[in-house]
C-alpha cells in the first residue's frame, strides 16, 4: 500500500513537470479498475488531448495519448466514440464553436489514421460552453483547449 502511494506521488510529479496532461489521463495503473471499462480508458489511457492557443494541431504529447487511445479502442471494439472539441474562454462564442469543431476533427482524423473506423467516431463542438476546469488563468485555459474522447 505504501509502495502504491509512492508511485502515485512520482506520477503526480511527472505530470506537473509535463504540465500538459490531465490528472485522470496517462496515470499508470495504480488503482484497480475493470479492464475495458470507461474508467479504465480514462485512468489508464487518458481521455483528452490539449492544444495551443487558437490552434488545432495535435501536439507531440497529444499524439502519444491518441496512440494509446487507438490501441485501447481496437482492443475494445464495442464502444462508439464521440470526440468533443473545447476551447478556452479567450475567444468569441461563435468562432470558438468552429474552433472546437476543428479540434475534435483533428483528433478524430488522427484516430482514423491509427486504424479506428471513421464510422465509429462522431464529433461535437462545445466551444467555450463547457469549461473543465473552471478558472480564468493560463493554467485553466491550457486545460480547456482540449479534445475529449467520450465513449458510449
Amino acid at each position: 500500500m505504501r509502495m502504491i502511494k509512492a508511485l502515485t506521488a512520482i506520477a503526480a510529479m511527472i505530470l506537473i513537470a509535463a504540465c500538459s496532461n490531465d490528472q485522470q489521463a496517462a496515470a499508470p495503473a495504480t488503482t484497480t479498475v475493470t479492464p475495458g471499462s470507461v474508467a479504465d480508458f480514462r485512468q489508464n489511457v487518458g481521455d483528452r488531448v490539449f492544444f495551443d492557443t487558437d490552434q488545432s494541431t495535435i501536439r507531440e504529447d497529444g499524439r502519444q495519448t491518441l496512440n494509446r487511445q487507438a490501441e485501447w479502442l481496437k482492443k475494445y471494439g464495442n464502444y462508439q466514440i464521440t470526440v468533443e472539441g473545447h476551447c478556452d474562454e479567450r475567444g468569441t462564442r461563435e468562432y470558438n464553436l468552429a474552433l472546437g469543431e476543428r479540434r475534435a476533427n483533428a483528433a478524430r482524423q488522427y484516430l482514423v489514421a491509427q486504424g479506428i473506423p471513421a464510422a465509429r467516431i462522431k464529433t461535437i463542438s462545445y466551444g467555450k460552453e463547457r469549461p473543465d476546469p473552471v478558472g480564468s488563468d493560463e493554467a485553466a485555459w491550457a486545460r480547456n483547449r482540449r479534445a475529449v474522447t467520450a465513449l458510449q
Partner: protein
Amino acid sequence: MNTRFDMMLPRRQTILGGVALAAGAARPANAQLTIDMTKPSFEPVPIAIVDFKGDKVGADIAGVVRNDLQNSGLFRSIPPSAFIQQNMDPNAPPRFPDWRSVGAAGVVVGQATTSGGNIKVDFRLWDVVVGQQATGLSFTSQPDKWRRLAHIIADAIYKRVTGEEGYFDTRVAYVAETGPLGNRVKRIAIMDQDGFNTRYITDGKTIALTPRFSPTLQEIVYMAYGENNAPPRVYLQNVESNRRELLGNFPGMSFAPRFSPDGTKVVMSISADGNTDIYEMDLRGRALRRLTSGPAIDTSPCYSNDGTQIVFNSDRGGTQQLYVMGAGGGGERRISFGEGRYATPVWSPRGDFIAFTKISGGSFGIGVMRSDGSGERMLANGFLVEGPTWAPNGRVLAFFRQQPNSGGRAGSVTLHQIDITGRFERQMPTQTDASDPAWSPLIPQ
C-alpha cells in the same frame, strides 16, 4: 397592438399666445431642449416629467418615461420632489418661470384615462427655454399595453430632442445563464428593453445560444444543442406560439444564424469535417446556397442594412479578421487591419458603422469602424466583453461583460448598453446572468 396615434395639436392659438408671452422672459444659457449626441461633449438635457393625470397608471407611465430617458445618458430627469408647480392642467401651458427655476429645459405633462376597455393617453412636451409646445401625441390602446405606451412617449421625446429615432419601444433577446459553469443552463429569454416582461422561450434542457430577431419580431433564430449529444443546430421559432422549426438540418453543426433585413433569408455557418463555411438559406423554399469555401473558419455573418453585402469573420489570413463580400458570395475583401483578432461584426441598421469584438493584448474590446474599415474606435474594454448588437437607431449598442472566474466559481455575466461615442455605459437589468444580447427593431405599431 391596435394603437391609434394622433398628433395632438389642438389649442394651437393658445399655445402660440403663450410663446409670445414667454419670449420676453430671461433664458438660462446652459439648458437647451436639443442635444447633438455626436458632439465630443455635451451636458444631459434636464427634463421634468410630471406624473400623468387621470388614472393611477398615469404615475406609472411617467415613471417609465423618466427611467427610459435617464438611462439613455442624454437626459437628466429632475426629481419630482423639486417641482414647484403642482396640480397642472395637462392641456394648458405650464408656468414656465417655475420650470426655469428648477433648471428644466423641458417639461412633460399628460393624462391617462381608461374607459370602455381602452386606455387613452396623451402628453405634451413643453420647451421651457422658448416657452412653447415642442411635441404632443395622443394614443388609444388596450390597458395592459400601458408600458408600451410609455416607451412610445419616451421615444417621441427622445426624437424631438436628439433628432434621432428612439429605441425604447423595443425588446432584447439574450441567453439567460444559471447554474455552475461546468454544467451551465443556457436558455433564450426575451425582455422589454428596460428589463420588464421577461419570458423564457427555450426550456433549458439543452444549451441554446445566439438569438436574433426577425425584422418583424415575430420570430427568432438561434442555435441549440440536441438531446443525447446531437450536434448543435439552427432553429427558427415563433415567439408568440413558441412553435419551433429545425432550419439547419444537416449532418454537421449549424450555428451563427442571422436574418436578412427583409426577413426572407437566414445566413449561417455550417461545419463539415471540421471546416466551417457560410451558407444562405432562403426561407421561402428552404433552398441552401453556399457563400464561402476553403479550409478557413468563416463565421459570424451579418447582412448590411440594405441586404446587398455580408460582413463576417475568418481566419483565412492566419488570424481572425473581418471581411466583406456580396450577399450572394464573392468579392471577399478584408476590412480590419488593426492589431489583434477581430470577431462578431454587426452592421449598423443605418449602414454607417460596423461594430465588432476585438481581442488584443490579453483583453477584449467592443469597437466600431466605418463599413469600409476606416475610422476604427474602441468604445468599451474589459477582461471579456463580447457580442455587440445595435439598437434600431444605430446610435446605441448592447453587449455582454463577463468577469473572471475564481475559486472554481463563475464570474458574473451581464448585459450593458453604450452610446456610439463610448461616453455613457450602463448595465441592463436582467433576472439572471445574461449573455448574447440581440436588440430588436422597433416593435411594429
